[in-house]
């Protein structure tokens, strides 16, 4: 590329990091919403076996989203 990413001003670098993290949160959220609909579908069909693994995975996704949220906040405070 024509520029050195390491030499961009901190505001631009921070903004790139924030944009990436927020996009990741949004994608994870879509996955989590889909997971909820799929679990609900299987529960209503009488198959109760999927509820526990789905809840665990949903919890993991939620924790990841929360961690990314904390990351966004800390970069935002530092750089903006």
């Amino acid at each position, binding site marked *: 590329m024509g520029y050195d990413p390491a030499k961009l001003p901190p505001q631009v670098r921070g903004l790139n990091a*924030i944009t990436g*993290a*927020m996009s990741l*949160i*949004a994608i*994870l*959220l879509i996955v*989590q*919403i889909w*997971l*909820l609909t799929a*679990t*609900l*579908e299987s*529960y*209503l*069909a*009488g198959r*109760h076996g999927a*509820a*526990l693994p*789905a*809840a665990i995975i*949903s*919890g993991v*996704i*939620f924790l990841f*989203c*929360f961690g*990314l*949220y904390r990351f*966004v*906040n800390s970069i*935002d405070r530092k750089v903006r």
Partner: protein
Amino acid sequence: MRSPDSSSPLWKDEFSVNTADERYVTRRQFSKFLVLTSTAMFVGQLWILVKSWFAPEAGALPKQVIARRDEVDIGEVKLFAYPTEADHCILVRTAEDKYVAYSQKCTHLSCAVYYSRASNKLECPCHKGFFAVDDGRVLAGPPTRPLPQILLETRGDQLIAAGIQGA
């Protein structure tokens, strides 16, 4: 905070110099909103988990007399409620000696399905969902899950609902 005939331009109100009047959504606020939505999804999953722990065993429901064998002609239906008054069901006599019964709630959005003699299918009129009469599986349309089937027993002259399968 901003009246329709406000004289200052919109950007001045949204990016106000007063911290109390700022109206643009900050990145932090939006991220917080996303994480709250994620929390809500997780709570939903937990709710399903709790409900699945407390669900009654499939099929182990009180038995109930729903009809006499000759009450319904071949190709005719009878509507009944099982296991509670709120659970509407449909009984179809498909042949001389064959009876089937299903929950009437369409698995798409819970409209009442009806039996169509012309096509020999259970039809949902709301979004054109079709279920097979013999086992309740989905033939066409938006529903994804088969119709819950009511297990039937015969005791002499009587048809008895003995449990639900698939719900």
